């Protein structure tokens, strides 16, 4: 196997506002070329912090204390803001979580989609518009011209998410970070959007880091996945393996918490108290180990 496209090594972070509480505990994960990698965990597990660290938009109250984010042989954490800006958009793109706020309400779709093309590819306004048109066709929007001339509030949530996906793939990035891209959408639209991301990703050979709290969604789209709890990696492996034979009790609990549409009387089990206690102990032992090694 060739070197992974994205290699996060022992990434640790703390919250400065909350008594230096650890947010990420030596997280390592690798995303290979052309792979869709799921990053799963409950709220507050640190999924979004990882995504933000890659994009260099960590909030000021969070501090990365250790580790590196390797992307094509360079450590993104040590790049200057200017160098990072050059990489972002061109090589790494984001599909944001909430399509209702991710588009600027006062600018037409045309202006927003061609932003990156003009800034990073140096295309003229006309060339950029043609490219945006083609991209919208690629995400199966029927009337691209009309969408390009619309304001965001004139489009439905699903349409907006398609536009955002098209914009993310516009510059043919090597890595797309999808931060819960289907959470704000209803289930039928969710499915279409997942298929869309998968097909675009396959066609362009893009690597995708797919952040989600929903194992059902992750199971549909991801090749491999990483399960995160309180900022610590609980389990890692191919999606099929992890879902068929979860080794870690937390993964088992997470699977049991998923609703089963085929058997509505089962599933939706809350995480058992003994599992939570064991997890807490595991985290505490890890923190003690880190403190002891200093």
């Amino acid at each position, binding site marked *: 196997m060739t070197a992974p496209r994205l290699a996060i090594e022992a990434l640790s972070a703390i919250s400065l506002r909350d008594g230096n509480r650890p947010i990420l505990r030596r997280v390592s994960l690798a995303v290979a070329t052309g792979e869709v990698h799921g990053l799963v965990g409950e709220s507050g597990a640190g999924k979004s912090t990882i995504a933000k660290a890659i*994009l260099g*938009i960590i909030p*000021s109250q969070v501090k990365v204390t250790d580790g590196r984010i390797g992307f094509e042989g360079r450590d993104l954490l040590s790049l200057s803001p200017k160098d990072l*800006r*050059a*990489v*972002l*958009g*061109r090589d*790494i*793109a*984001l599909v*944001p*979580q*909430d399509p209702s*706020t*991710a*588009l*600027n*309400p*006062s*600018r*037409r779709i045309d202006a*927003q989609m061609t*932003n*990156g093309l003009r*800034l*990073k590819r140096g295309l003229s306004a006309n060339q950029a518009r043609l490219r945006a048109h083609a991209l919208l066709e690629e995400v199966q929007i*029927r*009337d691209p011209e*009309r*969408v390009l*001339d*619309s*304001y965001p*509030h*004139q*489009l*439905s949530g*699903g*349409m907006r998410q398609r536009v*955002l996906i098209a914009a993310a793939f516009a510059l043919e990035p090597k890595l797309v970070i999808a931060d819960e891209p289907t959470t704000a959408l209803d289930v039928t639209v969710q499915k279409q959007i997942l298929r869309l991301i998968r097909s675009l990703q396959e066609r362009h050979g893009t690597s995708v880091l797919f952040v989600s709290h929903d194992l059902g969604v992750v199971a549909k789209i991801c090749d491999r996945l990483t399960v995160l709890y309180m900022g610590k990696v609980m389990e890692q492996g191919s999606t099929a393996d992890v879902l068929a034979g979860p080794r870690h009790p937390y993964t088992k609990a997470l699977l049991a918490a998923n609703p089963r549409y085929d058997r509505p009387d089962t599933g939706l089990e809350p995480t058992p108290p003994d599992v939570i206690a064991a997890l807490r102990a595991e985290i505490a032992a890890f923190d003690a180990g880190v403190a002891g090694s200093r």
Partner: protein
Amino acid sequence: MDIGPQAPTVAARLMRDPKVVCAGGFILLLIVVAIAAPWVAPKDPLAQNLLMTTTPPAGFPDAEPGFLLGTDGLGRDVLSRVIYGARVSLTVAFVAAGLACLIGSLLGLLAGFLGELVDALISRLVDVWMAFPPVLLSILLIAVIGTGLHSVIAAIVVIDWTRFCRVVRTETKSQAQMDYVVAARTIGFSRPAILFREILPNVVPVLIALLTLEMGIAVVVEAILSFVGLSVSSDTPTWGGMIAEGRQIVHEAWWVLAAPLAALFATVVAFNQLGDGLARSLDPVLRR
């Protein structure tokens, strides 16, 4: 997956709003009349005629032909004086409100966008500034730099920039947290580009509404300062000055008070209504 009808242009949307059309039309008319005062005004606003003092408006008994709104205590034509008075009111409205808007919103944008230290500095400055009683501040200022149009404008700017600063700061802060700003950062836009190209257009609707309201306030403040004789010298007709003169003879000649008061009232209402309508029509989220 159907999208709505094509977005009408901003101008078309504004033309459909009755508030904007009526209030905007009135103010436009006022501007034209003020600029063309020498040609529009039927008489010289300063020409006295002591043989024809306090003649009533046209249509009343003893009205003099040619004096549509009657004459004041010195026999000057009230209508001409109201028309000339609009010049001072509108100059103050546009210049003072514009400057206050410029200074206030620039500081507000920086406070809302540049991080906690700048925000704290500017916000505390605004807090301290607003602790001064505004009337005292303006009278003090005029006492120091003297009366005149420039002093009236300075007094309004010095007091009212804080209004813009506060509103723009809050709006900028809430816009800066939107995902589209994060998205712009992840495309690799520089911070000035994000502030002026992404955030500012979303602040402008609030800003324009506030600016229009401020113009109404500026007209009132100018009238108050004229009323107490702190504005332009008394040989320039102003609505506030006319109200002060009319107040003394209101029992014999009510029209000397009523005419400038009506002009003031209509102008302020028009600015307020226009601000209201503009806020509605320009806001992209409320556009329908």
